[in-house]
């Protein structure tokens, strides 16, 4: 076990030899590019289409292999396979578009049809190839599940160049892509060519899918464009930040996943990368400060306590009994109520204070309705903690509350 860890750390820190380092850098660049472009694919609601695209690459890959082995005698020439993949992916995308436009089928049905048909064709062709070219097709099945074993310097270079191009486009076209995803009518009215923006987005996605095929495999490459943005969404409410975070998550997850696969050589790279990304997603889902599940639960709990405490104390100030069990529990914990339900001296004092606070909050709501609506903490926390002191004084003077002591 510790040996495994030591190996993993060696790989992660690029000390496990030239080949492993090459794979890690390549995977991270690919993951980063996929995560960045994935944000816009997700926001444009194109994640499913991208799934169809990746599955549609298979028949192209196999056909390209057949052609290449016939004409060049080397079926595994990567560039030929990638061109084949891109070609049939474009066909797949066009098929989806065509079905949606000219039949009454909805997009999800069209995607399902195209995805499975292309994949089926690919599988049949693959089996054919395997029976004809025994041995020669060895690399082909890598395209389905991915492998980093044979990643060459040229492959890494190709990934780097593509990642660079994707990054450039994301920077230069950030505003346009944001408009496209958020409000397409507005983009059109402003004179942006939304059709060509859509094509640009699809092209970048295609580029990432095709160059990622061999490393991650066509079944999983699309996860690279989906999981990082979904995870990033937990951390931010801003598109620009989402792009940065998704790029970071994509790169980190791929780096780590590739390192894992270099140590556990018999496990598939694509699967390890995607599982790593999923772990990051899970962590984000749980611990992200604003939208994460834990933070959400915590905030809710806190909110509930505040409301119960306030309502309980207000009831006491009006000399009404407190019936709600949770309210009772909270007030008892704070020693405002005794075990038998009687109000303590502290309880009376706190109730007085809370009543005054509520009067001030109500006055504030009357005087500044819009600001009060915009406040998240209206009537939840003591008013002095939320709005400026001079405003509180002004309000209490207006209410002729004599001698307000702000700090107690």
């Amino acid at each position: 076990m510790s040996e495994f860890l030591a190996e993993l750390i060696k790989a992660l820190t690029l000390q496990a030899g030239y080949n492993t380092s090459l794979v890690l850098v390549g995977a991270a660049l690919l993951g980063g590019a996929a995560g960045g472009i994935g944000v816009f694919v997700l926001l444009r609601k194109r994640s499913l289409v991208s799934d169809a695209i990746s599955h549609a690459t298979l028949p192209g890959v196999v056909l390209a292999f057949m052609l290449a082995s016939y004409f060049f005698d080397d079926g595994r020439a990567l560039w030929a396979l990638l061109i084949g993949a891109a070609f049939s992916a474009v066909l797949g995308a066009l098929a989806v578009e065509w079905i949606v436009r000219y039949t009454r089928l909805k997009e999800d049905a069209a995607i399902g049809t195209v995805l499975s048909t292309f994949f089926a064709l690919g599988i049949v062709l693959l089996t054919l190839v395997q029976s004809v070219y025994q041995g020669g097709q060895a690399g082909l099945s890598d395209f389905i599940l991915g492998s980093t074993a044979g990643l060459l310097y040229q492959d890494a270079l190709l990934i780097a160049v593509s990642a660079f191009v994707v990054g450039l486009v994301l920077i230069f076209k950030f505003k346009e892509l944001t408009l496209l995803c958020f409000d397409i009518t507005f983009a059109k009215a402003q004179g942006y060519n939304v059709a060509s923006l859509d094509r640009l987005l699809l092209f970048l996605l295609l580029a990432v899918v095709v160059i990622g095929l061999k490393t991650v495999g066509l079944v999983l490459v699309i996860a690279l464009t989906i999981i990082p943005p979904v995870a990033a969404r937990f951390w931010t409410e801003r598109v620009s930040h989402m792009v940065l975070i998704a790029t970071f998550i994509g790169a980190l997850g791929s780096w780590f996943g590739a390192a894992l696969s270099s140590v556990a050589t018999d496990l598939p790279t694509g699967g390890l990368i995607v599982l790593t990304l999923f772990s990051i997603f899970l962590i984000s889902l749980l611990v992200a400060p604003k939208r994460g599940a834990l933070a959400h639960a915590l905030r809710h709990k806190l909110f509930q306590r505040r409301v119960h405490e306030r309502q309980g104390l207000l009831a006491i100030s009006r000399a009404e009994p407190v019936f709600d069990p949770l309210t009772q529990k909270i007030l008892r914990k704070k020693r405002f109520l005794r075990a038998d339900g009687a109000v303590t001296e502290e309880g009376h004092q706190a109730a007085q204070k809370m009543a005054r606070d509520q009067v001030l909050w109500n006055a504030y709501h009357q005087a500044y309705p819009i600001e009060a609506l915009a406040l998240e903490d209206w009537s939840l926390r003591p008013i002095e903690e939320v709005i400026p002191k001079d405003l509180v004084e002004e309000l209490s003077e207006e209410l002729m509350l004599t001698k307000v002591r702000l700090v107690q």
Partner: protein
Amino acid sequence: MSALSKQSLIDETGFISSKVAFDVSGLTVAYDRKPVLWDVSFQAHSGRITAIVGPNGAGKSTFLKASLGLVPAVTGQTFILGEALKEARKNIAYMPQRASVDWDFPASALDVVMMGLYGRMGFLRWPSQHHREQALSCLDQVDMADFAERQIGQLSGGQQQRVFMARALAQEAEVYLMDEPFAGVDAATENVIFKTLKALTAEGKTVIVVHHDLDTVRKMFDDVLLINRQVIANGPIDDVMSDEALRRTYSGRLGFHKAGEPVGGAAVQAHV
């Protein structure tokens, strides 16, 4: 019709006080071969605020969209301050009847308003502090400055409407086209926004508003376009908004009984 309106403008002030800023001619639009607008021509003048009035389904929204090329037109052209639509995009701010956006989008109210500035920001410019302040002041004009940092999905319907109004204001356009901006907005806000629009016309901008409330049209607007598939009337309110014209626009739906010659859109509608 346009001759009439120009005539009236001259009468009113003694000279031609404003030029044609928004000029649509011969606009015909069909959805699936069903004509929705038939040969509509319309002119709006700079420095004036025009109401577009007509019953539900009259084609008011379609008119705005088609004049901006957002839905395909069979025939027709739009000129903005003498320029063809293509060259004049930056001079138009359009606010649709219903914003069809993803309400869960990672954007705050301020971010949305900032999008109104994108067109002027230019290639590779990122929003700066200056742009933020500009956007904030637009939010302030619709009383929404306090909500600047809220994610847009967490606003009420009326508040969302106001954010999109602020985005239109941020565009600093010459011609403002607004499709029922007051729908779902409370009276106080309507007042505030209306003052803002008036202020725009005082600067010589052109404001065109689809408006449903016949009672307030007379008080609030300078000119009117009465439309029901065809143009019924177009010109200064006092000149063209007669009971007769309204009857023809609403073809009996305002409580008048349909009598005499069936005209324009009413006739077509009766036969389709």
